[in-house]
């Protein structure tokens, strides 16, 4: 890691409920600028709920309740207007969800919603975003074909480019490679490493090896509780908690 660690997001006593189900219990942690913060843990351990609380996508669910605070750059997210929060804290979902539009219009969707109409500016944003997501060379001659025609791996990189186009500060990846082949996975991981130079990255993954490969720090969540949080190398070589060790060595989960 380069330079001093500065805090980007600070989570304090965060508890999430969906109806009677507690998805996350008393979570306290800090996420630093320009790191890849990785979260591992079995299904139902609250990983995705955690991500979706950061950009308030959980608010769409009627039964959702939250207590505790999420602070980004010193400001509580409840005090920010929801559109600009979601612009700053963006998410890449497990399945690539291209909108039923052309490649170009998919990337330009976010900027257009934020009021950019100038054709030349949009062209520039689309090219830059696709290059940053390592997709430009593969699609530059067919920007106007439907995005749904791309392969799964390309679609996932399209989704990354679509997010980069709105110039976020934090990029959250929710099991971004669970549906991809090993080569596409390697490309997405490479993209993440590049992106961390300019963005803060939070990666939720079911793939323990992936966390070991790309994570700077790794948190292990189990049944909504933070079991252990440490530098990725340390966590994987000498886990303090037996449950962490069992999970990363494949004894359960």
């Amino acid at each position, binding site marked *: 890691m380069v330079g001093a660690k500065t805090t980007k997001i600070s989570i304090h006593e965060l508890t999430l409920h969906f109806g009677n189900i507690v998805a996350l219990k008393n979570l306290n942690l800090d996420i630093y600028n320009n790191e890849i913060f990785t979260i591992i843990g079995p299904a139902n351990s609250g990983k995705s709920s955690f991500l979706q609380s950061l950009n308030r*996508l959980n608010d769409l669910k009627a039964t959702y309740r939250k207590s505790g605070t999420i602070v980004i750059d010193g400001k509580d997210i409840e005090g920010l207007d929801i559109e600009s929060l979601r612009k700053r804290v963006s998410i890449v*979902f497990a399945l690539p969800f291209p*909108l039923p539009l052309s490649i170009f219009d998919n990337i330009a969707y*976010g900027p257009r*919603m934020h009021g950019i109409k100038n054709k030349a500016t949009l062209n520039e944003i689309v090219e830059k975003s696709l290059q940053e997501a390592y997709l430009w060379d593969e699609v530059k001659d067919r920007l106007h074909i*439907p995005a*749904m025609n791309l392969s799964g791996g390309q679609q996932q990189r399209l989704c990354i480019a679509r997010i980069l186009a*709105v110039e976020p500060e934090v990029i959250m990846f929710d099991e971004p490679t669970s549906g991809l082949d090993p080569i596409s996975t390697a490309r997405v991981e490479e993209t993440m490493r590049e992106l961390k130079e300019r963005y803060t990255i939070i990666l939720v993954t079911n793939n323990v090896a992936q966390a070991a490969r790309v994570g700077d720090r790794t948190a292990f969540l189990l049944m909504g509780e933070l079991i252990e949080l440490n530098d990725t190398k340390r966590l994987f070589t000498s886990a303090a908690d037996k449950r962490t060790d069992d999970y990363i060595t494949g004894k359960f989960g």
Partner: protein
Amino acid sequence: MNVQREQKIAFSILFLCTLLVVVPVMIILVIIFVKGASALSASFLFEMPTNGMTAGGIFPAILGTLYLVLGAIVFAVPLGVLSAIYLVEYSQDSFVSRIVKLAIVNLAGVPSVVYGLFGLGIFVLFLGFGASILSGSLTLGIMILPVIITSSREALESVPQSFRIVSLSLGASKWQTIRHSVLPHALPGILTGTILGLGRAAGETAPILFTVAAFYLPKLPTSLFDQTMALPYHLYVISTQVPGIPENVRYGTALVLLLLVLILNLAAIILRYQFRKRKKW
């Protein structure tokens, strides 16, 4: 029973049922066409009725029906689509909203004569529009509202949730999301509802009976507050109320009504096709 036999029997029953539905429709169409085609001529289509409707054309009725249908669509489509958007995208799932949705679905089954009486009470008498194109259009519009709301709701609900989530997660507002990621993909379905409503509005007699239709009015309406003749009512009148109308004039009128609905539907279907072509998933 062996599987093959069972399959054959199932197929035959399904095929027969389809035949039972299609054949009567075909027979009706053929009879109307055969008996009515001889009446069709430019003067029949574009001239005033004369001689107590036993001769001349049916132009005022054609024009009247066109006005009424367009009026109903202009009134009902925006209102229906906007309320469907509210119901699907904004209203919380509560007891009241479920009652409202149920009520709308049930309204589609209310007999058209009831809408006619409603129109008479509200538009003709209470609001003082008199028997007029305005009253008739509004009455027909209210009659087709449930069809349009219900099909628009289904169209909106069939847009994948992921489109909304992606749009919101990119920082679009709720309205931007609806406007750019939901509505464009629901348009073909909304148009289907409009087509159904259109056919119904063109063909109904009861709602216009009290609110607009003139028995015999051989001149063209000049304003929204004029009465007008209309095809379905005219057909009823010449078939049952006035003796001595040649048979081919009666069937010709029915044929014209059918063709009119067909042409209106065709226009909407072409429009829908244009939207569907743009659909990329």
